[in-house]
């Protein structure tokens, strides 16, 4: 009964999305208020039916309804309850249902929080989101319906959730990632609506900015969680593998970062208009491309979903229709765009443009690296693979100028900056960052140039950010105390500072862990001790443990430093009974400055085990940095000037919207 309700709701959601794609747009075209007014209720209906459908699937999982093929393949009666819930997005069909649920959440959010935006614009935006939805609901119902039934013959028990996914990181990673992916659809919808209406002034940039920042923040958290999960769950100790699926999420992030900054220029300076529109289309197209790559099987990856050419073809069709239509519209309309902003060679505009170019170059590098094996083969040149060294080298080249501009950008003025005015400040920042990096590097017995370079860049961002805040509060014309002045800076300004600092923190983590990590693969029997990087790892014992749906061998380790006990670690080797799949649960002790990481390998003869031990300096900073970046995003969105309703009221009072935006000056 319940699965049938879910199925019907999903079908109803498709119907609603078709209505949403047609009526409000038609209304906006004909200037027909009643038709435009259907947009909001339809968006709410879309969300409502999708939610019902999702809840039905969750219910099917919780009640072990193995008559559903999807439940039978991804759950098991012995799976703990919380994993039964998360198993909903453990496979292709269910994760797609989560995907469309997120899409409907964004749609309804746009409908509810855009009261200040003109009626016709909201109608167009919601219609475009409706068009995007039509494609995906059709895709679900035609090729990957999670409610497909196995009646009348259904299995007694399910095949269990992939053990890799039975983990806390997996509970929140996909929702966050999808929120980010799908969130760029809002920016896309705004851009397309602006192109459709021909109103390509800076207002669309202001309206879509908070949405882009929100999507970008979610995506940052999602990517970081995925990386963190890979780090502790795969047991290889790595945190980024340049795997096609990781690349698929990284490309929209890079494009989204560029979009976020380009929107700022468009909003404030009315420049880069055409470029911003293109980036908005590109960010969403890359999200779609990522979805295609992950779910079609065109590319080999450790964690791609089961491949099926019809599904791939369908998503490719959606990609062609949405992105192709968007880009075509862009080609037709963008030539009308004129960016009146005038600026000199050394100005914030130019620096932001430089960083945009670098971010786009980085996106292209990832795109080419991911697709080159495919293209190469299709051209009949044979099979090749593009590995981590290519990406690492390219990113090392790209990040240096990027960081240089990143530090300079906030310090410089719009339009024109005299070099002389900043020279001393910059020399000071540069000198300080090099000496700080030098000092830190010297504390290592074998200093590495790459680590020193990374540290210099991080300190450069840190110092220029501080200088920028000081410059800002120094410019305030009042006699308030320091603290009060700091509090006067707008939340969106703090958002920028936090975003940049977060990047610096991540940079520190990456450069130190890449250059100073140490690892040992050893054969250890209980009672033996191995020393690494000043720590002694003592292997006490192995105990058997019976989990709810797995059997485990738990290694008992004590770690000492200079004779003092640091920590007690219990890495596990699990065997999941249903899928007969071994899993490594690493034992990790994290502090701010280093992670101790022990993973159990294979059992050897005489009770000995193959054990892998790592010491990873500052690795946790990588994910902390991402969290700080996302926090910066949240800070920015909380800024008053994005509260549309308030803005609308002010607009009525002053009948001149520009006056309200003067308070927040940030990039």
């Amino acid at each position, binding site marked *: 009964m319940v699965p049938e309700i879910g199925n019907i709701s999903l079908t109803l959601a498709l119907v609603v999305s078709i209505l949403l794609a047609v009526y409000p747009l038609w209304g906006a075209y004909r200037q027909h208020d009643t038709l435009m007014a259907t947009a909001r209720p339809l968006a709410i209906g879309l969300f409502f039916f999708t939610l019902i459908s999702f809840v039905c699937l969750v219910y099917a999982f919780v009640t072990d309804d193995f008559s559903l093929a999807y439940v039978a393949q991804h759950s098991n009666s012995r799976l703990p309850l919380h994993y039964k819930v998360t198993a909903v997005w453990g496979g292709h069909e269910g994760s797609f249902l989560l995907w469309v649920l997120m899409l409907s959440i964004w749609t309804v959010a746009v409908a509810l929080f855009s009261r200040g935006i003109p009626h016709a614009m909201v109608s167009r935006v919601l219609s475009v989101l409706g068009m995007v939805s039509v494609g995906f609901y059709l895709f679900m119902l035609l090729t990957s319906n999670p409610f497909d039934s196995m009646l009348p013959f259904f299995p007694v028990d399910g095949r269990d959730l992939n053990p890799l996914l039975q983990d806390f990181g997996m509970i929140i990673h996909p929702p966050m990632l999808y929120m980010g992916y799908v969130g760029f659809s809002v920016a896309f919808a705004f851009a397309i609506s602006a192109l459709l209406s021909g109103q390509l002034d800076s207002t669309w940039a202001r309206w879509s900015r908070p949405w882009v920042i929100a999507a970008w923040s979610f995506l940052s958290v999602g990517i970081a969680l995925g990386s963190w999960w890979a780090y502790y769950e795969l047991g290889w100790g790595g945190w980024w593998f340049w795997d096609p699926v990781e690349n698929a999420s990284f490309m929209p992030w890079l494009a989204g970062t560029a979009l976020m900054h380009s929107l700022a220029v468009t909003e404030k300076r009315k420049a880069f208009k055409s470029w911003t529109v293109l980036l908005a289309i590109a960010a969403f197209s890359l999200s779609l491309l990522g979805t295609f790559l992950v779910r*079609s099987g065109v590319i080999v990856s450790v964690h791609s979903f089961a491949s099926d050419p019809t599904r791939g073809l369908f998503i490719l069709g959606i990609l062609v229709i949405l*992105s192709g239509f968007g880009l075509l519209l862009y080609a037709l309309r963008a030539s009308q765009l004129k960016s009146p902003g005038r600026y000199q060679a050394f100005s914030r505009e130019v620096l932001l443009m430089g960083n945009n170019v670098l971010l786009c170059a980085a996106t292209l590098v990832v795109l080419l690296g991911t697709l080159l*094996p495919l293209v190469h083969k299709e051209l009949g040149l044979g099979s090749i693979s593009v590995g981590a060294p290519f990406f690492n080298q390219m990113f090392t080249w790209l990040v240096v100028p990027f960081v240089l501009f990143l530090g300079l950008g906030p310090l410089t003025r719009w339009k024109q900056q005299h070099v002389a005015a900043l020279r001393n400040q910059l020399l000071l920042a540069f000198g300080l960052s090099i000496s700080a990096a030098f000092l830190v590097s010297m504390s290592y017995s074998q200093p590495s140039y790459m680590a020193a370079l990374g540290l210099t860049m991080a300190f450069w961002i840190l110092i220029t950010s501080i200088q920028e805040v000081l410059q800002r509060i120094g410019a305030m014309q009042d006699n308030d105390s320091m603290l009060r002045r700091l509090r006067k800076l707008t939340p969106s300004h703090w958002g920028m500072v936090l975003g940049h600092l977060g990047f610096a923190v991540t940079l520190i983590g990456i450069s130190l862990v890449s250059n100073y990590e140490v690892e040992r693969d050893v054969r250890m029997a209980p009672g033996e001790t191995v020393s690494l990087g000043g720590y002694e790892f003592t292997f006490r014992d192995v105990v058997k443990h019976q989990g709810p749906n797995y059997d485990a061998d738990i290694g008992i380790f004590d770690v000492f430093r200079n004779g003092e006990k640091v920590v007690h670690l219990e890495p596990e080797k699990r065997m999941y009974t249903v899928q007969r799949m071994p899993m490594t649960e690493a034992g990790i002790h994290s502090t701010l400055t280093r992670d101790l990481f022990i993973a159990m390998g294979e059992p050897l003869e005489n009770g000995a085990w193959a054990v892998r031990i790592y010491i990873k300096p500052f690795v946790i900073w990588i994910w902390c940095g991402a969290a700080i970046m996302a926090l910066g995003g949240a800070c920015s969105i909380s800024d008053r000037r994005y509260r549309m309703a308030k803005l609308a009221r002010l607009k009525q009072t002053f009948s001149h919207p520009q006056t309200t935006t003067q308070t927040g000056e940030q990039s």
Partner: protein
Amino acid sequence: MKKFPLVAVPVLLFTVLIVFLFQGLFSDPRELDSQATGKPLPDFSLPDLMQPDTSYGPDDLTGKVRILNVWGVWCVTCAVELPYLTKLSREQDVTFVGLYFDQDLDPDFGTKTLSRVQQEVTDMLSRYGNPYAFNIFDVYRDMSLDLGVTGAPEHFVIDAEGIIRMHHIGDINERVWNNKIGPLYNRLRQQNRSLEAAE
């Protein structure tokens, strides 16, 4: 209209991308067109990994069906498949010959010594199992080049005449063995045995 070509660039690039993605949908990325299949082993003369005085040539790989396994201690997947290969060699009498190459060891410029490599190999084989009849040491990696090796692990099924009958990229696990390599290997072995019996 002067600006038009520039703004049309994205849509054109996108079209090219779509064409490739569309073609990619209908080809299996795991499938490699190997140049080596169906041909005899390239000529080589290489030393044994453990006893450099012994040297091997193509003739040492005839007379019996064998699987040439390209591997190295630096290769994680190789370590993963070693126990299963060992099991195959013990339980089903499958003959594996290792083709070993090292990334860091270059006899002219390398940082590792041969004895160090031998020590690592011995460690790894004693830890995970040793399926190999013997290991050929591909000193300059030119044998791997001639065979068209793209990485490790890779496997070549070589029949009794020394002809390469299959080139498998990636590891051998139970599924790969049962579905792909095992049937061919057993058929070749059967043919060879009936030939021998006829003689």
